[in-house]
């Protein structure tokens, strides 16, 4: 169980680092991707496009490094994935013909695929958070 949690934590951490780096390489493109969802006012696009990729990278690194921050990083990544999934669902409900923008310019896959992937990600993040929670309980080994 511990081994599986460790492998999953490193895999998810690396996935979010890659996703963050791809978006951080071209924040103007990411701002356009966020804009395509038609959910946010114009003034919010640039700050979010500059900030979110770095939050993903830092949280991903914290997960990989297995430092004291890994549970907090996991909670942040879970919260971000919930918000991203909500945006994808809203775009699907409005029949927007857009790409998800989840992996920068490399994400040309349809929204329905992004939704399925996000649901799998949410399940993995949720399971990992539960497993981390058990480890963090008093008397349990681990926690850093």
């Amino acid at each position, binding site marked *: 169980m511990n081994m599986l949690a460790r492998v999953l934590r490193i895999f998810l951490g690396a996935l979010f680092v890659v996703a963050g780096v791809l978006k*951080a*390489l*071209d*924040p*103007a*493109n*990411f*701002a*356009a991707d966020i804009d*395509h969802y*038609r959910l946010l006012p*114009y*003034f919010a*696009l*640039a*700050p979010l*496009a*500059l*900030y979110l990729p*770095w*939050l993903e*990278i*830092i*949280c991903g690194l*914290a997960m990989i490094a297995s430092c*004291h*921050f890994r*549970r*907090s*990083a996991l*909670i*942040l990544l879970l919260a971000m994935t919930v918000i991203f999934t909500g945006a994808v669902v809203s775009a699907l409900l409005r029949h*927007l*013909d*857009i*790409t998800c923008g989840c992996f920068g310019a490399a994400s040309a896959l349809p929204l329905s695929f992004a939704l399925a992937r996000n649901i799998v990600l949410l399940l993995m993040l949720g399971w990992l958070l539960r497993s981390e929670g058990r480890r*963090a309980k008093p008397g349990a080994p681990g926690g850093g």
Partner: protein
Amino acid sequence: MMHDEANPAGMKTFRQIALLMVLAVVPALLAAWIHPKRPAWGWRRPAVAEITLADAQRLPSPVIWVDARREEEYRQRHVPGAISLDQSHWEESLPNFVQAWQPGTSVVVYCNSQECDASHEVALRLHRELQIDGIYVLQGGWNAWLGAQKP
């Protein structure tokens, strides 16, 4: 403080989350300052913005392409589905555009190349006369489009 004592683990997690969020601000600010591909800042969306061909092709539908070149050039060849808005035949051409446009539509205007002004003029005129937003001017114009068609 009472809460801190009541749930120290929760407060620790909360502090760590706050710290991670603050940490991400540092590279984000640096990127806003020096990144060559940093996004444009502003409170309000510019009435007319330039757009690359790659970005224009990724705009969510519906999108109307507007050919701002001379009508003869449009008749020879144009972007598939484009509407001609030659300024010298403005009154006759505008109804075609109005008929095609609906709320939420993005408009991409092009003229011959990066050097021509017709696309900017037509884009601004559309914004001014019809009070619509979401109008883009294609960087590189028709030449950029043609260049992308080559194998």
